[in-house]
């Protein structure tokens, strides 16, 4: 910030502008697409330029170190580590043995510390063994050893697709919280095709997924349409559309003749026809299905769309600065709507994967499994880039896969994963907080040596003046 004094008694002091949601390469204000009421608060964002460039000339090594330690990857790693520590504290605090031994902590602290260590180490080793390598069953063959890894990919499959649905909207300056509704509609549509039609094997599952994608795209498009042509805020609209979709699908699932399984009184759909199920890639014992390949393809497509296509260029342009895009002759309203259509489409892929890959025995209104919200954390961790979303999806897929084992083996409720995930996003969203916690240099501030030199210089010049 500038040199002017701040209110020292402010409980919170502003530091520099952070923009998590938007385009990762845009130092812009949140783009309010059709409300060009840019007030004075918007402008200063650009004034917070770092002076890394000048530092570099005088102090190349220090600057390189500072740049790396202040970079996004280090931030991500630190955020993940910190969150795991917070999760560990929670696990230890709720462990029964830890609670029992804490009663005589001051008499024998080692008891409690070892109990805490065992609880945390046990939980996190179960997390690792459930998500990466199952070392306990290493002697049962290579397949058993790496099975958790394929489980991770399986859990990551819808997370990646849904993450793209949030990421692409971010790039256009939109916030798609509507993942739940879009996934539900996609699941319902894909499921309906999956259980009520008879088609040739490969074609059937592809048609089901395509119909799911279209359904998700339409539901996303409604939000985009309202945003573009009435100015309704997409956050509000997508939240509300989530609940509309939830109740609508619930109603269809309990109404005979619509989606309900004939002969059942429960709100559940019939099972998928065999031909509408995504086949496994490797076969037993692995559960990994071709949906993962579809997700990878979606990442590649999204990457091409954003970075290489003309439409993607317009997406990014509107995301950076809608007014400039409008002046350049782009149809901002159309782009806004299309962005939500694509976002809904990616969400639709995730929803279709759920019914054709994960839960093929009939779905309920809980088929989205919270993925629509997880997707927000995935996209944020991935920096709103397609491949970043891919790796973030893998990480959270690993958390999910390991979380189930952790719950089964160690009795740690899987909800801890949600907590760790949310902390990761909070820390990712506020790099200054993480830097402050680890004593890392803040970008835009000067290194200690430089500050010292400058102070010395000032002292000298002052001496001369006197």
């Amino acid at each position, binding site marked *: 910030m500038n040199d*002017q004094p701040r209110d020292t008694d402010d409980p919170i002091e502003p530091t520099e502008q952070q923009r998590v949601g938007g385009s990762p390469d845009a130092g812009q204000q949140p783009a309010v697409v059709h409300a060009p009421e840019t007030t004075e608060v918007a402008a200063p964002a650009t004034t917070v330029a770092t002076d890394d460039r000048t530092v570099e000339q005088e102090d190349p090594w220090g600057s390189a170190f500072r740049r790396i330690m202040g970079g996004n990857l280090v931030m991500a790693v630190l955020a993940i580590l910190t969150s795991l520590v917070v999760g560990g504290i929670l696990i230890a605090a709720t462990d029964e043995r830890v609670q029992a031994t804490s009663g005589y902590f001051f008499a024998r602290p080692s008891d409690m510390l070892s109990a805490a260590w065992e609880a945390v180490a046990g939980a996190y080793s179960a997390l690792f063994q459930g998500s990466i390598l199952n070392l306990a069953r290493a002697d049962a063959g290579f397949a058993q050893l790496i099975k958790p890894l394929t489980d991770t990919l399986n859990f990551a499959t819808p997370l990646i697709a849904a993450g793209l649905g949030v990421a692409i909207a971010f790039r256009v300056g939109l916030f798609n919280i509507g993942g739940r509704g879009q996934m539900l509609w996609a699941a319902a549509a894909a499921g309906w095709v999956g259980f009520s039609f008879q088609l040739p094997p490969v074609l059937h599952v592809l048609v089901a997924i395509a119909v799911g994608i279209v359904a998700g795209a339409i539901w996303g498009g409604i939000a985009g349409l309202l945003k573009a042509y009435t100015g309704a805020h997409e956050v509000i609209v997508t939240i509300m559309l989530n609940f509309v979709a939830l109740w609508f699908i619930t109603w269809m699932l309990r109404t005979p003749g619509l989606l309900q399984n004939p002969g059942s009184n429960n709100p559940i759909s019939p099972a998928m026809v065999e031909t509408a199920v995504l086949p496994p890639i490797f076969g037993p014992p692995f559960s990994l299905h071709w949906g993962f390949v579809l997700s990878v393809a979606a990442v590649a497509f999204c990457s091409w769309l954003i970075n290489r296509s003309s439409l993607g260029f317009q997406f990014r342009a509107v995301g950076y600065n809608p007014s400039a895009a409008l002046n350049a002759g782009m149809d901002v309203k159309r782009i806004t709507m299309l962005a939500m259509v694509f976002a809904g489409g990616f969400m639709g892929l995730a929803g279709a994967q759920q019914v054709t890959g994960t839960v093929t025995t009939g779905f309920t209104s809980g088929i989205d499994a919270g993925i629509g919200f997880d997707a927000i954390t995935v996209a944020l961790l991935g920096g709103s880039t397609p491949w970043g979303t891919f790796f973030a999806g893998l990480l959270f897929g690993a958390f999910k896969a390991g979380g189930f084992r952790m719950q089964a083996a160690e009795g740690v409720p899987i909800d801890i994963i949600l907590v760790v995930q949310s902390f990761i996003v909070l820390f990712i969203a506020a790099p200054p907080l993480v830097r402050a916690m680890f004593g890392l240099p803040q970008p835009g501030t000067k290194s200690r040596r430089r500050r010292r030199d400058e102070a010395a210089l000032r002292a000298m010049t002052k001496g001369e003046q006197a």
Partner: protein
Amino acid sequence: MTTQQPTAAPAETIELERAVVRHWKAPISYAVLTVVALVLMVLLARDGDARLRLASGSDFFQIPDALLPARATGVVIVVLLALLTAYAAWAAATVRRVGVWLPIAFGVLFVLGFLTWAGAGAMIPIAGLLFATVGLSVPLIFGAMGGVISERAGVVNIAIEAQLLGGAFTGAVVGSATGSTIVGLLAAMVAAVLVSMVLAVFAIRYFVEQVIVGVVLNVLIAGLTNFLYSSLLTDNPALNSPERLPKLPIPVLESIPLLGPALFKQSIIVYAMYIIVPLIAWGLFKTTWGLRLRAIGEHPLAADTVGIRVTRLRFWNVSLAGAVAGLGGAYFTLDSNGAFTREMTAGLGYIALAAVIFGQWHPIKATAAALLFGFASALQQTLGAIGSPVPSEFMLMLPYVVTILAVAGFIGQSRAPAASGKPYIKQ
């Protein structure tokens, strides 16, 4: 809706240009609803009488049940609705202001017609319906008040859900552990304030996109309370059985027919609500605090220029919003339910957010919106009990659809405080 613009004529011959703007949205909305009523109550009319039970046990005097023949009542009401629509259209065409009585009369008639239609051949306990409405609205109203304060101060509060859930959990645990409901109530407020402070710190100090912080906080608190519920409360039921706040009937008022039991046979949280809502409305528009609050939400730079400390005021007001929402959270575990269950707020925080928007960021209007949404879900429960001709899911959808129509500009006008959601960066 006339605006007057002086033209650039010399002073002696000022001619005023009159721009006449006719607003057709309201008549169109009324017309659509009248058509809906026509279809339901006349074309799809149901036979039989609807018995509306207006009395309850402790009234001064017992009002007899109203026995309304469904078909005839439907016709009368559709005619009345059509007349009101015609009046609204005439008023719009001749650019006249219509009083607030018109939407109220329209709404009451529509609801009465709908009740008669849906309850044909059955008995609807109106007093019970109103009692349930108040009960279901309390957390919505507190949540909406939290939303109003926070958004008026310029911080988008998506985290109402988290504040309610955090308050509910803490209220239950502390209330059980200490054995005192009042301590539980205060703890619930403190917990919600802490949630708010996280929101405030990230939004105000670190300039993180406020919607993101809100959404993440909702997920975080849901995960945290679920985790603690599974790992602590299921093994120690003693920690999850708070004493419930006693119902304190107010001696005379509780015997008012129809409204008495619903309004004046409640616990202290509800009575606190009767005080807090007008207090916020008065404070927001009549006090220095309110003026400053609205200033930092509309134009923080201007507020800063006249010496208001924007960041500090925002921080404390967002915290205050949390305290109010925390009362709503406490209502779940200390009044209505008596124990914490997983994700027991079940999206009510989002309905409260909807009430804030539908209520145009005004405390009284937001309360009215919350009551409307509470009435919709109470009606859904009542109709579910007597066998409703409308699937209950559609009743549950109502608040969300209404909100979408509101933000899209079809119903009323929805304009957020200008600087809501925008961080203020001091130069």
